[in-house]
């Protein structure tokens, strides 16, 4: 591991200043991903600014019925907070589907947003990777790509975003609050992560030195009826092959409103708006869910080892919608 300078921030503004002043400085919170990447020689920061003790861990109700989750709230704390459990069960389920109890106890909500892909080619500097070293090539396209993207990929990068939490946040239209050298701003969730395009090295639209302070969840009363389904080889402690966050407003046998997001299929948490269009106003039954699933994967493209993900994602969508929507009551 490359030597680096470590300092602990006591206030957000100072942390922002320290990181924005130095090109290769990084924030560290739980460190559950960054330290692995540093040990692998993928991340090579000269300075780490520890933000774990900044007073940003509160989870509070917002005036209009929403909830604000402080960026430094631990994944385990956020998962089990009564406001989250009660108003956004899909988010609790997503949190608890991720990693292990030990890791959730360390990992922060802000850090979870900043997770990098688990593509094995990205993780090993002995192999070419455009995300790690722009222009070097993508080894996964011609290599072993079982866990890779089927939606929104580019020839430059077919990696997927690993987070479970973010799939639920995408479905819930969360807003990411950040503080930068020029002040604060809000980033709609869909604009936070990026598709790879020609710049796969850039996972998010966060600017260097910007600090995530909180995630806002807007009021969404029907989110009480929601479900997170994660499909994976191992029963626990594995990233999703595919996952689905489904939020359905069903009454009188019809879907009034719907939110569907997918994990494990794209470079970012994938909001399935085509599926939502089909769902909205349609009968809440399996036929509708199937149509929605087909629509969600209509633009899918598979590689040598991940063809199965397309069918698996469709089936997972149907199951998640059936679970969230019940039999259409």
């Amino acid at each position: 591991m490359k030597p680096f300078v470590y300092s602990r921030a006591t206030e957000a503004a100072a942390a922002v200043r320290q990181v924005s002043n130095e090109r290769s400085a990084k924030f560290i919170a739980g460190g559950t991903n960054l330290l692995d990447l540093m040990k692998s020689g993928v991340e090579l920061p000269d300075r780490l600014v520890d933000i774990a003790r900044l007073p940003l861990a509160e989870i509070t109700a917002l005036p209009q019925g929403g909830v604000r989750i402080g960026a430094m709230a631990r994944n385990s704390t956020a998962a089990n907070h009564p406001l989250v459990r009660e108003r956004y069960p899909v988010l609790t389920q997503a949190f608890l589907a991720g990693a292990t109890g030990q890791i959730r106890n360390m990992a922060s909500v802000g850090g979870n947003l900043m997770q990098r892909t688990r593509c094995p080619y990205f993780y090993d500097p002995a192999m070419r990777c455009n995300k790690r070293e722009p222009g070097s090539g993508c080894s996964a396209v011609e290599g072993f790509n079982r866990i890779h993207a089927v939606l929104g990929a580019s020839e430059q990068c077919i990696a997927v975003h690993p987070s479970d939490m973010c799939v639920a946040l995408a479905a819930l239209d969360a807003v990411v609050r950040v503080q930068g050298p020029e002040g604060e701003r809000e980033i709609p969730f869909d604009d936070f992560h990026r598709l790879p395009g020609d710049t796969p090295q850039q996972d998010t639209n966060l600017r260097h030195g910007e600090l995530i302070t909180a995630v806002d969840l807007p009021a969404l009363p029907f989110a009480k009826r929601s479900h997170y389904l994660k499909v994976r080889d191992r029963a626990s402690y594995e990233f999703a092959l595919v996952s689905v966050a489904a939020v359905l407003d069903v009454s009188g046998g019809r879907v009034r409103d719907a939110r569907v997001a997918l994990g494990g299929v794209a470079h970012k948490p994938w909001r399935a708006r085509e599926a939502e269009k089909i769902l909205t106003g349609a009968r809440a039954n399996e036929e509708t869910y199937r149509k929605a699933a087909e629509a969600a994967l209509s633009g899918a493209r598979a590689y040598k080892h991940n063809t199965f993900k397309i069918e698996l994602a469709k089936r997972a969508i149907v199951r998640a919608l059936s679970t969230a929507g019940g039999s259409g009551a």
Partner: protein
Amino acid sequence: MSNEIGKPLSRLDGRPKVTGAARYTADTPIEGLTYAVFATSTIPHGRVTKLDVSKAEVAPGVLKVLTHLNTPKLKPIQHPPAGQSLMPLQDDRILYEGQPVALVVADTWERARHAADLVRVEYARAPFLMDFTEHLDKAVTVKGFFEPDSKTGDFDRAFNSAPVKLKQNYHLADRHHNAMEPHATIAAWRRGKLDMYDTVQGVFVARTVIAQALGRKPADVRVRSKYLGGGYGCKGFVWPHQILAAVAAREVRRPVKLVLTRAQDYTSHGYQAATEQTVTLAAGRDGQLVALRHESVAPGSMSDDYVEYGAIASRTMYACPALETRHRIVRVNRGPGTPMRAPQEGPSMFGLECAMDELAVVLKMDPVELRLKNYAERDPTKGKPFSSKKLRECYSEGAQRFGWERRNPKPGSMREGHDLIGWGMASALMETYRFPATARVTLERGGTVLIESGTQEIGTGVYTIMPQIAADVLGVAPERVRLVLGDTTLPGAGMTAGSSTTMGVGSAVHDAATKLKQKLTEMAGGPIAPDAYADLLKRRRLEKLSAEGLWKPDGEAGTGESKEWTMYTFGAVFVEVRVDESLRVPRLARCVGVYSAGRIINPKTARSQMTGGMIWGLGQALLEHTELELNYGRYVAKDLANYLVPVNADVPDLEAYFVDEVDEHASPIGAKGIGELGAVGVSAAIANAVYHATGVRVRDLPITVEKLL
């Protein structure tokens, strides 16, 4: 005899292990320690053309950078017992990715690791071979531990005239041991002698090979291994890093600690080679086998002849008059394979037991019935009787405990909610490898008993069962008996491998304890009560009284053969799997195993061995595979995030039972071995259950979701 044998005594080393008091190799405190880290080859085949160590050499804390240009020449070593004869840092040849090209020694581990990253290497690349399945035409016959081929009867004639025939290919994945504790070696030279703390399954074997490589007498080398955080075979043979740690310590004139990284664990000490198996069966309509041919091809290395015997179980398992087996390897640019729980029988029982299930389907016969129909009363290849075998009882007790009679044989016929339920079974078989061993048992002042033997504790329960055996003879409480092991200054013992320790070391301990009791009886002038031992010593003004024990198998060491008998352990495994009708991810729901494995010294630690084996088999069936990167000639990933082993959430209710058995032909204490047996048969039973659940026959492990969609 006080009947300590057979009691479910809790592990005597349980408390030190869970409290952290147990000291593992890398935790050994040594004065003046330095730290060594490898830089490894990024290409699979070629030569090192340029090595730039200038940045590494001047990095903070660095004491030495060893490469093939400055490492002293070592004496050649042979496989076995070396894991490989190829010694890195001796010349510029590269035969596999991950082969060490430099060893950096620094004053801290972090500095050594950083400096290792600063070593720059240029290579001349040569063409490489990775995937043996694409080069089956290059298969060669080599002599490993066993004869590559066997032939009994006239296969072609029997096959051609049989009414029912079946031929299928089965593929098992490359797997890695992934012991929780990575390999660690501490080497310290003191007055010309080498003192090593090493993560090994055999201290004496390590001493022999390390001394040979360094051109020293074994007496100049001491190797210690007090606790092992899992071995599973990868710490059995002796690997280059152990020797190079000793070389580094000599070069820097300070003790060196070398702990391999998790990634290096994938390329430094073997793996379980994949096997491509073909099973050809012919039977009468009544299910009687008339011809059986089992062929296996596995990847081998460029430097050595380790063979995974993926067909060997078929030589023994079923009574069949015409029986052939064949083993080949295809040399590839990877380090050599090595035994991994359970080698040989483990992979081969997958092909055989899946094929038997397929035959049962063709014959519309119950799988258990088919196996009973072909029950072997003696080894069909060697012709010898089994020293003990109660497999019939295993089948019937297992079936009864599992509830097998409620099975509807039709695939997909049993379900609950979204779950398709599958019930499958398989047999288990493992050869009883026997090795000689010695031990010393000492009565100490105060009446406590000390057992000394240079064996190893690799997690199996040796610290508990050896005291039980001595206590049983001497009539003292096992808690008053303590075992000291894992040191080449102790009485000699073999590797803790091949499920051989209970039998071998246990018999030596039994012999020593018996002799000690004789001495005490003679000294007392007649029978003496255990509570009078201490007084007797005191009266005789003795500090202690010792006896040496020895056991030697009456046949070739390292086999399960004696003049009259052939020795194996057996079992029957029954499993239930659940496969979601839509999502198609297979999960194990329960597993019942019943075993015929000789006398069980401690049913508690033994049960733990068997359930651990079942989990090992579950991993083989549903999760574990080391993926090859064919473009780079390496493994895709070398970490536990990509190599999936079962976690608690994958492991359901596991039940393990033993039939009552004492095998006095195998060892004086009636015991055989169990460490590997539990891992055999499980993957076949699971594959057979997946077929029963879904109607899809997966002949390619692991059984992952895409094979069932």
